[in-house]
């Protein structure tokens, strides 16, 4: 899976919790929680979406690593090959 394919799926999971998201306006390094006003329930639902979309488990200890779109794409890429 290419990084672009991963990014597309990540954005789809994000859009499920933040429907007003304009993908083109989201800077790769922007903090998602601040940028999209995501709370802990949104964050959990997003992680559930990611887990299902890519078939991976995401330990709680890794949550802090997933603060930006860029970081998430890298994290997923490392797990799905």
């Amino acid at each position, binding site marked *: 899976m290419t990084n672009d394919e991963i990014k597309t799926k990540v954005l789809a999971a994000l859009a499920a919790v*933040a429907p*007003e998201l304009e993908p083109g306006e989201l800077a790769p390094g922007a903090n998602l929680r601040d940028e999209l006003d995501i*709370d*802990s*329930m949104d964050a*959990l*639902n997003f992680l*559930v979406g990611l*887990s299902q979309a890519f078939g991976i488990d995401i330990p709680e200890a890794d949550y802090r690593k997933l603060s930006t779109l860029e970081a998430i794409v890298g994290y997923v890429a490392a797990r799905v090959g």
Partner: protein
Amino acid sequence: MAEFLLPKLGADMSRGRLVEWVKKPGERIARGEVIAVIETDKANVEVEAFASGTLERVLVEPGDEWLPVGTPLAVIGAAAGTAAAPRAAEQPAPRPEAAPAAQGRARATEAPPKLPPATAAPSPTNAPASRALTPPAPPIAEGARLRVSPVARRRAAELGVDLAALPGTGPHGRIVLADVEAAARAAVEERQPERPAPAAPLTAAEQAQEKRARVRAAIAAAMARAKREIPHYYLGTTIDLTRALAWLAAYNAERPVAERMLYGVLLLKAVAAALREHPELNGFWREGRAELADAVHLGVAISLRGGGLVAPALHDADKLALPELMRRLQDLVTRARAGSLRSSEMTDATVTVTSLGERGVEAVYGVIYPPQLALVGFGKVVTRPWVADGRVAPREVVTATLSADHRASDGHRGALFLDALDRLLQEPESL
């Protein structure tokens, strides 16, 4: 035969817009089924039927017009085998999915039950004639206990009818359902000339702006009323969450993402359990006295993505196991933000819980949502030096606050509640 009136889905609702009929004329309706979707100033709400019957005809079509609370929307016929039974109409209907014993006093949006023949569904024009069948009771002195049937009391709360100003036509001047509904219809008629003319179509940006303004206006009305009428008192305490968070981390570590819990669920369950111990904080202030609720329905403050907030009810939170409470919270938040709450969720909350900790706030001293008796707030979980057993150690702590109605409880009771909350959170495995 009875009219289905636009219900009042919360203290901050004065009007609504019919979005959709879920049921069509001629269709049978089971109690608890969604009959229509109503847009309030804050959200779209799926309105549930109070009694079984048949949707005989609709009086209002979906559209852009804002209608006052109490506007007749449809005519509901009796279900086969449930002919009018005046006494039965006085009985509370069970909320779907819950045992009768688990009901709170507030009721969901309800299609009116069958009425006694002498007062059945009076139209605005024949309402006075119906009343004339029974001489009106003398005005009730201020402070005197009103004679009101339970179903009439609930309906009055839904429709925003002031019972104190209502003459009762039932036995011994008792206020019955028909009195309340006639008063609601009369109020609607009085307001008719004030209905605004249809406006020109708005752009998407204007619609969003208008929506935000309506949300703020609805919140403003409820909060101004709360601050005007409720003598609040405020208490706060710092609770050590270290043990609870460690327990939760171990719980989550064994489960996939979809089965994990948020720490907020522990807080909610602890609040519900503490309210069981201190019921003076759980219920409503109505007609000059506290009405304590039989069930604990937590109103969970949920911020909406477009601005504003709603506080729909998590029913029977004290009776739910933590995983089920988490599942229901997840569902409630998702539906609140998608605009698909149900009417019972909008009206049943017996107390409100709010948390602003995620945005860095350390303590919340909230405004009570009328007619509730209390609001519980939580701030941010922070690491603090903490003295335990004569040693200073870093602990994860949260500030819990209580805003309560001083008419219904005193600070001592509130302090006992916060103490119980602290104790319960030290034993997360028992929640």
